[in-house]
């Protein structure tokens, strides 16, 4: 395996408390809103898609040691460098040293409200019938894959039940690799706590997640 994600945290040992914060506390340094905005504005140029962004972030070697917006900036620099849009010497100098490469679009201030309100829907018209229906018993794939994926490690090789059929959606795995949208049916699948964590799982809860059709196999 050459692809390694540092972001697949579900169920990892972690003894730290979660620290609640007031509703109004969104940023903790003045550079954080700038980091957010510059990431959104570059995303709007169409030079990469959201799944490529996630892949760039989750593969950063210092992911676990970094704050969230630091991860965003490091991934943004990586995406820009990979595409020849900005070179490392320019970041060092703090100014442009090489000619700009073409981008598909530039997000203008006046267009921001409309662009945000539209978003980037991932549902596509159904081209095949859904393989599974609500109530079907399924098992998630057990094997690891050597690329970005959205099946968390804790839910590999687990038996669950289809709870909702969510339409056909752009397939994150191929989209992240530049292999196109290749839409697939998406399902919400529910798992018992004991299926995920064994007989000594904490009582009284269950987990559901969204899984693309190719993550799932029918079970008897």
């Amino acid at each position, binding site marked *: 395996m050459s692809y390694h994600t540092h972001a*697949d*945290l*579900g*169920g*990892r*040992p972690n003894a*730290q*408390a*979660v*620290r*609640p*914060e007031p*509703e109004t*506390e*969104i940023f*903790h340094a*003045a550079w954080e*809103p700038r*980091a*957010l*905005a*510059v990431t*959104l504005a570059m995303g709007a140029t169409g030079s990469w898609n959201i799944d490529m962004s996630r892949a760039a972030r*989750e593969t950063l070697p210092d992911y*676990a040691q970094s704050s*969230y*917006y*630091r991860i965003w*900036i490091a991934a943004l620099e990586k995406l820009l460098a990979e595409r020849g*849009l900005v070179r490392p010497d*320019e*970041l060092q100098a*703090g*100014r*442009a040293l090489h000619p700009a*490469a073409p981008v598909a679009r530039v997000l*203008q*201030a006046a*267009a*921001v409200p409309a*662009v945000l*309100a539209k*978003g*980037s*829907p*991932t*549902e596509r018209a159904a081209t095949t019938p859904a393989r599974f229906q609500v109530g079907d018993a399924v098992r998630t794939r057990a094997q690891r894959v050597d690329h970005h994926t*959205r099946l968390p490690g804790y839910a590999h090789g687990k038996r669950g039940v289809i709870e909702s059929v969510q*339409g056909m*959606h*752009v397939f994150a795995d191929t989209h992240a690799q530049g292999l196109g949208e290749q839409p697939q049916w*998406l399902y919400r699948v529910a798992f018992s706590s004991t299926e*995920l964590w064994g007989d000594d799982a904490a009582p*009284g*809860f*269950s987990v*559901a*997640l*969204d*899984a693309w059709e190719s993550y799932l196999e029918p079970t008897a």
Partner: protein
Amino acid sequence: MAHEHDHEHSELDEMTLRVRALETVLAQKGYIDPAALDVLIDTYQTQIGPRNGARVVARAWADPAYRDWLLRDGTAAIASLGYSGRQGEHMVVLANTPQRHHMVVCTLCSCYPWPVLGLPPTWYKSAPYRSRAVKDPRGVLADFGVTLPESTEIRVVDSTAEVRYLVLPMRPAGTEGFSETELAELVTRDSMIGTGLPQEPAR
């Protein structure tokens, strides 16, 4: 001798300088409109936040027909109040009941319903929340000071695709006759993620 503080102006921290350099290069290359950055920041600081979601919840509490629509087609029902788009393109609303309490997490990154809740809080993106929510949800709720009856099943929902989840908390008792505005004031952000409960009405 007066203290000199000039060094404070030159010792800007690493991330401030790094983001500023990046912003400058991107603007010089014509990839971004600097004015667009200001609009983006203003939008998420002053316009898009959890008061949007609170309005949705209050409407659902007050209007049974709206509640049915919201649970059947969250995207359309939420859009009817003017909230749509980025990171909320496909909305599903999950209603809490005495039997089931929903709690939303994104174990793989930080997926969160921006049009109704704004940007995610730091704890939502943190390793403790993402690690523990799917394995020890009652322990996580205890960190928020929330204890639920043993008879209530907790359903943790991991946002692993582009569907975004909003929790519809139960309407607090003692709110008969409240206006939607009064109801919305009781709706906390955390109650719409499932790590909290709505506020009780003042006596």
